């Protein structure tokens, strides 16, 4: 590792995170990482992308630097900027530059939320050059061997603005994340919350019902994350129907009629 860069040790994932593999995503990610290829995680929110990244970072023993993208995120926020301290100007690396120099895995979550110009800085990193140009310093940093890049993206958004440009998309190996099969999802819910299996199974069935409503009243069905939330509430004593209402239905919609329908669905199960 470069001697004069800040250590990334505190970004190491110490304990093994629980990740339930759905398909061959672990193998593909590993192979991509070894070959220096960037990875695109596609899928709706709350289906395990972040958890997967934590798990992979642990498995590969690399520091993981996660940036949640939002619409004010500028290129400088990723690359770095000058600060002035006591009359001295000093350069501070942004998270991306830190990962590039220190050989960490940089995960840009919800990448389409960032401004369009922000995306340009990752392009030279995402092809075989593997360099990060730092305009303000007039330098190019060659990525450390251990550097890895992953971005996530939710193709469910219908907005034209939230689409990933072809020029960006085509640089990545894509992994698709969907809802796990009922058996696996039940296992995840049990493991994450300690809920008893019979109720966990009903909860997963309830999730399926809300997913049936996608397109006829709901933009998105319940994610695994919401199920885990509801499960945790149930474990701490909340009645299942109320837990579904607070942790799931209210998170999915504000429409009073839709909320009523969803409540009828959960009370028909529990």
């Amino acid at each position: 590792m470069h001697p004069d860069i800040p250590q990334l040790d505190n970004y190491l994932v110490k304990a093994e995170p629980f990740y339930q593999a759905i398909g061959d995503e672990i193998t593909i990610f590993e192979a991509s990482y070894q070959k220096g290829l960037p990875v695109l995680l596609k899928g709706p929110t709350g289906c395990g992308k972040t958890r997967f990244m934590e798990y992979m970072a642990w498995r590969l023993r690399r520091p993981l630097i996660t940036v949640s993208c939002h619409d004010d995120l500028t290129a400088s926020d990723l690359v770095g900027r000058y600060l002035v301290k006591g009359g001295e100007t000093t350069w501070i690396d942004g998270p991306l530059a830190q990962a590039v120099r220190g050989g960490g895995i940089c995960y840009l979550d919800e990448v389409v939320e960032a401004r369009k110009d922000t995306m340009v800085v990752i392009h030279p990193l995402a092809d075989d050059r593997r360099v990060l140009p730092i305009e303000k310093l007039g330098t190019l940093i060659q990525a450390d061997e251990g550097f890895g890049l992953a971005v996530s993206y939710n193709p469910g958004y219908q907005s034209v603005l939230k689409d990933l440009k072809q020029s960006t998309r085509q640089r990545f190996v894509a992994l698709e994340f969907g809802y796990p099969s009922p058996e696996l999802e039940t296992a995840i819910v049990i493991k994450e919350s300690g809920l008893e299996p019979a109720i966990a199974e009903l909860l997963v069935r309830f999730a399926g019902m809300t997913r049936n409503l996608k397109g006829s009243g709901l933009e998105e069905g319940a994610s695994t994350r919401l199920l885990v939330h509801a499960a945790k509430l149930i474990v701490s004593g909340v009645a299942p129907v109320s837990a579904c209402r607070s942790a799931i239905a209210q998170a999915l919609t504000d429409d009073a009629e839709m909320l009523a329908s969803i409540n009828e669905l959960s009370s028909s199960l529990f």
Partner: protein
Amino acid sequence: MQAARDAGQLVILLDEILEVEFSFRDTTVPAAAIAAMEPRLQDYVITWIKRVASTNIELAYQYACHVERALGLMDVETVESWALSAMDAYDREGLRPARQIILGLDEFVRLTREQADGCLLSNQQGILLGFLNGLAGRRLRIQESTQAYTDSETLFLPSLLARLATPERNFQLYKVTIAMLWAQTRFGTLRTLLEAGFLDAEDSGRRLALFHSLDTLRLEAIIARELPGLHRELVTIKQDLGEDRLPAPWDALRWSVSAEGCTAWDVVERVRSLSNDTEPLPVFAHQGILDLPAVAACVAARVSREKTLFKVRMEQLKDELGVQEHWSRDREPRLTKRLHEASELPEGAGVDILIDGKPLPLPDDMQDLVSSILMDLGDIPDEYLEPAGPGDYDPKFFQDSSSETEDVWSGVYHEKGALLYQEWDFRRQHYRKNWCAAREQSVEPVDNGFVVRTLEKYQGLVKQLRKTFEALRDENRRLKRQPQGDDVDLDALVEALADTRDGREMSERLFTRQHRTERNIAVMFMVDMSGSTKGWINDAERESLVLLCEALETLGDRYAIFGFSSITRKRCEIYHIKRFEEAYTDDVKGRISGIQPKDYTRMGFAIRHLSRMLSELDARTRILITLSDGKPDDYDEYRGSYGIEDTRRALIEARREGIHPYCITIDQQARDYLPHLYGPAAYTVIDEVRLLPLKVSDIYRRLTT
């Protein structure tokens, strides 16, 4: 307070009101009854007798004779609605049916009790449909009918259920009935029935009834496993209605069909082996009827429609894939299928489609299609996978099947330049394709000094608006002298260097930074130009637009203004006033001045048309603001729930495009329907028309900061 009138006084009074002189009606009996009432009630009753008399004298006489008993049976409000519905009936159909309502007092009492305790489908349809859609399987619709049954695509339900004591319980009965009919489509009842050839048997009626009884018990057991919460409600309903105890052979029969894995075929077998003296069970409240001919017709139509759809969509998929994978054109890829286990499906297995041996990922609509085909046929037949030939493209499967569509377009209107928009028919729960013909035209600019007059009239407000909006705009500036930022602030740096040279401490604020709220907003104003805006509403709208333009010109947000009006779906007009890319020119001012009230208020097409325009823009935030004075409404059927539900749909579509719809209205009734359309926080009702111009810019400011 007046003292009570005695019977004698009342006879005179009634004789006068009821013109007894000419009719020989005997008023002594009603007069005696009314004489026994308190003075206040007497006044009340006499007022109402007069009211009814203004409609019809005979009706009023009958009312007078029955009102005392009516007051004993119902509360005052219901007694009024009894009288009103009689008068309505008189207006609509004449004396006989109206008189029938007054004389049929007991029937009226019974019906209102049912309505009060019962559950009306039309009030709960939205919620019930959501519930139904959540249950897995084919998309099903709900439609009112006299009896409960399904043809495998639509659930027909009675418009009122009142067998249980309270509205809530009757709502539960709807749910349970829906689940039952859904289960018939989902767990093989209908498919098996069609294949079992029951209709051909000699005693088909009795066999069918036996099958229906036994299969209902099988489906109840399935519901107990799949929807345990609902099953609990089912059990209490059956207890309340005394349906929980089964006659002798049926208890044993129930157990024989309750095991997991028991299919409708097992039920058919059982029914065949039943002895001839076994009687079918009485029909349960939640059971509905089986209408086999309806199912047969519906399934046949669907199977052939879906076969075509499947083949054609498959060809499209192959084409898309071919482009991606650079297939040579002369080699047709081969489609095959593979069964895979899927415990969540009632069939226990799903089907994957393979293309040259590799699994073909199916888009959502295709997955729905495949599962619908599986529900009908249990498999994807091999011939579905053969390449589509010319005969497979029967265009009628891709059109709206309703025959109304054609004759509408026989006029000349539709010929050139009209854009066709779909419209949502809530009764069918379906879009009507190409339903509205919309055309765009420009408002004729007029130069009548309106803009200048408005700016003078609101002089003070204009000044204030400019100030507020300037301040807003300046929030977007680059912030200078920041401790950190994207660029060096040269002025600050020069000063700082000078400072160090003079031996002073150097400032750390040497950067510029773009302020976070970079405005990248595009807003579309959709202006109601319906006939009802005639007069000062129109003036207020035009004044609002003038002020708004001042504000937005100061602010620099991109904006467009379009008007809309309609007269039936064949004439939906969009009026151009200002486009996004157009500057605020004299022409635009002239068009604002020239806005005139036109016809009706069909909102759906206008929302669709303008959202489309809006979503083509590259802006971070896109807003659609409607200025209106009333409910959606047009000369044809576009009124009431129809207009509201289509408008709501159009808004949902817009939101899905990432557009924020907002409504500003002066309709005082709007609070009844706007939350349903725009959501609780996306509208403003202005109480006085003259306040509109004062408020609009302010609302816009709040909306965008």
